[in-house]
């Protein structure tokens, strides 16, 4: 008779905090259940409390990985983008989130990892390492990455300069990069306020862009950032 084999996970000795901070995460049925329920509640809340309108859903590719790029005015941005993808894709949609903020304590890590499905992004020391994690993620078919290239929330409403990370991630690859613009985030939930106010939100999803033709040089990276920033701003102007 053959012996039974057991396959305990490699992180069996990890504490809860370590498991929450690690990435990629192992699929976990309880986590998936909680995330699915909270995603449904979130969609309902955005729809009725913020009257969220989403335009351009047809631009989202169906069977391949893509990157969503958006302006960053409040935490609502992430939530709106999460609500724009089909609900069955929710466990494969990863907002890149600053590790120093969203994974700084156990309760925050729990919300970020379980409810938001955030990818801990190190915006200080290990930026390059975090980018490698992102590109590995996107090499698997059907994953969605949400990135705010400004790197932080704006306090004035003026869109900040796009950092080079997004450019380095997609230069010379066949990934679809989709510019988005959320209008109304700043008035609905300004930085520093504890709770969002019932203001209208409007998310525009632009046409996919592709940078496969560009060579992997720093000039192309700058070019991509400029192009994306313009596209996002362009979408924003439609609201004025």
């Amino acid at each position, binding site marked *: 008779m053959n012996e039974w084999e*057991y396959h305990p996970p490699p992180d069996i000795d990890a504490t809860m905090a370590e498991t929450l901070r690690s990435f990629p995460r192992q699929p976990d*049925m*309880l986590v998936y259940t909680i995330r699915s329920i909270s995603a449904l509640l979130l969609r309902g809340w955005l729809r009725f409390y913020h009257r969220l309108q989403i335009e351009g859903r047809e631009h989202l590719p169906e069977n391949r990985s893509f990157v969503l790029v958006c302006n960053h005015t409040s935490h609502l941005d992430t939530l709106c983008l999460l609500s724009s993808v089909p609900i069955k894709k929710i466990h494969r949609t990863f907002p890149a989130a600053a590790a120093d903020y969203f994974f700084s304590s156990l309760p925050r890590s729990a919300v970020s990892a379980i409810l938001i499905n955030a990818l801990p992004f190190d915006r200080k020391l290990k930026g390059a390492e975090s980018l490698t994690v992102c590109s590995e993620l996107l090499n698997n078919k059907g994953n969605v990455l949400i990135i705010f290239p400004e790197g932080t929330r704006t306090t004035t409403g003026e869109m900040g300069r796009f950092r080079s990370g997004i450019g380095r991630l997609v230069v010379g690859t066949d990934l679809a990069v989709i510019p988005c613009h959320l209008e109304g985030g700043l008035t609905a939930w300004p930085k520093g306020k504890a709770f969002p106010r019932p203001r209208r939100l409007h998310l525009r999803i632009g046409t996919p862009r592709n940078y496969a033709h560009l060579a992997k040089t720093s000039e192309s990276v700058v070019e991509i950032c400029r192009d994306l920033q313009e596209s996002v701003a362009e979408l924003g102007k439609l609201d004025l």
Partner: protein
Amino acid sequence: MSINAAIQNEIFLTYLAIVGGLLLFAGLVLAILGALGRDVLSISRTYRGWLIMVPIVFGTIFLGRTATIIGVTALAIFGFKEFARATGLYVDWWFTGTVYVAIAALGLVSFVSDPRLPRTGWYGLFMALPVYVIAAILVIPILRNRAKGQLRQAALAILGFVYFGWMFSHLGFLANTPNAYGYLLFLIFAVEINDIAAFTFGKLFGGRKLRENISPNKTVAGSLGAIGVSFTVPWLLSFSFDHFEPLHLILTGLIVGVGGQLGDLVISYIKRDIGIKDMGVVISGHGGILDRVDSMIFVAPIFFHMVRWFHGLG
């Protein structure tokens, strides 16, 4: 059980005083030893773990029957999750999901009333549930039209449900008895005392190993010492069950003293066969949930049926 009942219940208040006093005393001893320059690092960590767990346990029982049943059911679900993760059953969502639902059903059945009887806790269905759950688990491979590896998965799922789910859930069902405070608090307290006694006697008196292929740190002396302690505890705490005759006190001591150590050894050989040290990490210094409640899984159902045989549940 309810908040009002807990405030007025002498048994609940007595245990609160005993455990609070013991924690305070242990804290003082640790502080003095630490001040004398002894190495108390690892035991301090364990002690801090107790400082977290004791309020949670008392708080849950204080809140009443609903909270107690929910608490035990949650422990059973997360305990099973540790077992499923350790064995690798966890990657199979059909089996794991079925057992999750089944354990939740045990909690529900402990909570509702038998439609034909006026008291809470549907005892008949609680005892019959394993029939349906085992049947459901065995049907999964048929539904999936798959044979390879299914015996192993089904066997692990059934063991996981029956042992970590059903047997452990008897603890929650005790919340339906009129003497719930006495039974629950005595069991939790006595099982922990038994664990601590086995550990302490094992440290004090070395000598022959108890089961060297399963748990190399346990000694015969430690085991006998713990059984001795566990036989006296029911007499010292006999206020927990005024209606117990001497025979029942002796049986209680036997169940806690022997059963507690057997439960510990069961988890030990499961871990050893898999090749892991702890079932997980929940509270620093205490390992996973199963490392903490291992003795209780064995003791709770046997104590439950002893009580039911002699005194009934109503």
